[in-house]
């Protein structure tokens, strides 16, 4: 059977989910293998080295760098408070002394006799990592973090903003083809993950922010509205560190595009369940797509578990989504994968797939198709 490797976005109903939770620097891991964790449970912590302030004592006291150690009142390693005296000249017969006070509280890290600089390091900054999803600890990465295992639905979006969040799923759009409007969002939705259909406008998203909604999942959003959300023009799709109360996951792309049937159905079935959402996206080598994870609680663990997370690529009969115009956003079934190159209207010679969309056949470059991975 003809076959082609085209990565697609995952829309899995019941799958094994493994999440690596790793500290930015080595630290201590508090979870143990096999233990059940809640999404907000802290599983590892570390201290990032504190900020550094440099004080040029030689310049401030007008002494040679080599003489700085003689005017210092504190040694390397000493703790110091803000505005404590750091260095002082002897003055003339004890008068006309000049001094330097510490601009911050911290520890003296070094005193240079070449440059006259004194380095003061502020207190370390604690960093904690939570479990993010409901599940159990599958693996411990020594001093660095854990891998959490869970079972449930896993949906990837194409693009998102905002970091990790969690909340109950609330489907607001009546169909995958209807818009999530500002009027639909109320303060009752605080802390929830709202599911729309084909689009959310900037105004509606702002309303979600104002109502402290945890997350929004929709088919499309306008690229040009991102600037107002982010405060800058998004030139490269690397997101996730924005400080937004409402994470946004776009499942299809920019513009008004109906949400994929499988995605909408799965989210609708999950209405009312607790989910974890992450808008972080990185489209570079080592791609990261935004995601919605809906763990299945113990009581309902009898779903038909997805056998293996394998990517089989595109074959005859695969369900695919067109990801570039014309027919952008439409879902079709692969009928044929001809081996030879075909000429497109743009005169580009490409390998194509013949797909069926609503009973009509279209020739589409394979690179403009995405396999919809469903289970």
């Amino acid at each position, binding site marked *: 059977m003809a076959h082609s490797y085209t990565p697609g976005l995952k829309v899995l109903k019941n799958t094994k989910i493994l999440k690596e939770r790793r500290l930015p620097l080595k630290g201590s891991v508090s979870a143990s293998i096999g233990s059940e964790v809640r999404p907000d449970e802290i599983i590892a912590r570390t201290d990032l080295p504190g900020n*550094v302030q*440099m004080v040029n004592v030689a310049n401030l006291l007008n002494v040679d760098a080599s003489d700085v150690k003689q005017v210092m009142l504190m040694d390397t390693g000493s703790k110091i408070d803000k505005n404590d005296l750091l260095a002082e000249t002897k003055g003339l017969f004890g008068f006309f002394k000049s001094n330097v006070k510490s601009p911050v509280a911290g520890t003296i890290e070094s005193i240079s006799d070449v*440059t006259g600089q004194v380095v003061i390091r502020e207190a370390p900054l604690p960093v904690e990592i939570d479990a993010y999803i409901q599940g159990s600890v599958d693996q411990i990465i020594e001093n660095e973090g854990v891998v959490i295992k869970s079972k449930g639905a896993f949906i990837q979006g194409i*693009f998102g903003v905002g970091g990790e969040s969690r909340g109950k799923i609330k489907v607001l759009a009546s169909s995958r083809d209807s818009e999530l409007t500002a009027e639909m969002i109320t303060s009752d939705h605080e802390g929830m993950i709202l599911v729309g259909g084909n689009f959310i406008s900037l105004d509606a998203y702002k309303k979600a922010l104002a109502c402290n909604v945890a997350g929004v999942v929709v088919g499309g959003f306008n690229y*040009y509205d991102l600037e107002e959300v982010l405060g800058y023009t998004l*030139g490269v*799709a690397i997101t996730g560190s924005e400080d937004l109360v409402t994470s946004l996951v776009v499942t299809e*792309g920019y513009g008004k595009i109906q949400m994929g049937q499988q995605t909408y159905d799965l989210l609708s079935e999950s209405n009312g369940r607790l989910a974890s959402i992450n808008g972080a996206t990185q*489209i570079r080598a080592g791609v990261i797509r935004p995601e919605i994870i809906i763990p299945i609680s113990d009581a309902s663990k009898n779903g038909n578990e997805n056998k293996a997370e394998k990517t089989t690529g595109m074959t005859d009969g695969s369900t695919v989504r067109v990801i570039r115009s014309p027919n952008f956003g439409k879902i079709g079934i692969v009928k044929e994968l001809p081996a030879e190159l075909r000429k497109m209207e743009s005169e580009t010679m490409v390998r194509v797939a013949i797909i069926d969309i609503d009973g009509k056949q279209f020739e589409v470059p394979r690179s403009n198709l995405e396999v919809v991975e469903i289970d």
Partner: protein
Amino acid sequence: MKLRSILATDCGSTTTKAILIEYVDGEYRLTYRGEAPTTVEAPFEDVTRGVLNAAMEVEELSGRKILDDDSIITPQKGDSGVDIYISTSSAGGGLQMMVAGVVKSMSGESAERAALGAGSIVMDVLASNDGRKPHEKITRIRQLRPDMILLSGGVDGGTTKHVVELAEILAAANPQPRLGQDYKLPVIYAGNNKATSDIEKTLSDLTDLDVTENIRPVLEKENLKPSRDKIHDLFMEHVMQQAPGYKKLMSWTDAPIMPTPGAVGALIEMVAKKENISVVGVDIGGATTDIFSVFQEQFNRTVSANLGMSYSICNVLAEASLSNVLRWVPFDIDEKELTNRIGNKMIRPTTVPQSLEELVIEQAIAREALRLSFVQHKAFAVNLKGVQKERTISDAFEQSDSGQSLVDMMELDLIVGSGGVLSHAPRREQSAKMLIDSFLPEGITSLAVDSIFMMPQLGVMANIDKKSIAEEARVAALEVFEKDCLIRLGTCIAPVGSMSKSEVPLKINLEFKNGEKKSINLQSGELIRVEVGYEEVKAELIPAKGINVGAGKGEKIDTIIFGGQVGLIFDGRGRPLDVGSDPSVRISNLKKWASALNEYPELKE
């Protein structure tokens, strides 16, 4: 000794490309090529897998046995294996460096030039006078996590204070390498030799410090080679050692693995030297655009980190502005819809334009990405050499603030384009037109594209150190570059001056190889194409008063020019190029010019 066969690979971020060069009938030729996805990332995490897959494709196509049990057979035995195997790499984001110098426009600029010349991406240039406070610099260093740092500053024997201060900032930041938590960050010190011991005292415990010759030993001398060589050594010793599978790959190759852009630069530098010409080379990729130039025998390279055709396509839009992109689009389009379309290309970077409209838009964006990258290149390629140069003190002070760009479009002889949008444009006319519109060559300039982007492999071939094979590999690289790598598009002849004031700014008399003659009167605003293959054409170019086509205003030129797959292009549109601000004028102009070159035949005039 003649080399019978050479296998060369380039491990890119997404694709590993292999080429087989063989000595056939008294010349070196590219015979087969193959490619496979790069396997640096999960689930494979071993770069050699992709190399073997690409080599296997070459093996299948050529029928020559190259592989033996997951290794490459070298040297050639009978009809099996290859005499040498070499590779370049830009996988995993290439070599990412941070450089530091005392004065931003002096040692900072020299350090940047050394790092770029070695093929790295420069993430930031720190300098004592860059206006940032020490704690801001420290925060920046911590955020960036480079692969390597190059520290310079001060002339030999001069004051040590400032450069040691920079070292103290580095020490306070305690930078961590990007790949792996278990090794120390390589730092190269190439500054004032008097400060070496203080630098060692400050940095040797925290980093893997390596000291080399000063990049600016005296104010008026720049000495980049030792730093460039050291960067290559450390790239191999440290950075590559951390990348999955590279240890194995290094044991296979007959020459050190070079960073891809470093290899391309080396090749362009060599070609310019051999032919004694000025060259601009460009590689427009998905995320970045690299520009290489050789003017007045001085090599320069710049990387425009966020001007590319897929991952960073929205950044092109942001930097160029929508109106600048639209000025290349010969039809009306809803602006908001256009931004959404471009956004969708960014989030689905592997898609290709299926409709003509999509193709035209993509090529419009490419023009702006190329134009902006070239603007950045011109600003960086100022009057300071990439190799040692004697200059007077007064020259040294002039270098940056008043430094004239080395890039002289009238002097430019050859533009070589590469990267998907140029190499794989459906029509060569489109590639030629994109190069002309974005670089705006003046006078007589040859145009070419790299057929399959094999410049990296040829660059590393041309720079093999092993004495027994170095010379022959160099010969092979240049022969293949000339015969198989370049696709000659033709020559652009663009007169400059007050075009609209002359009725006929340029009269042209051509004599072709078959004796046929042709005369053309090029009018202002006109674009004329003469179809002729890659052969000599005698040309008499007679500019009107006040018009320059290379020899000075009003000066006639008798010369030999070459055609190509597109032919000769006479560009009477003037410089700078004005497409017309009124939409209807713009659309009419664009259609007229597209029609002259048969650029988009389906687009009705």
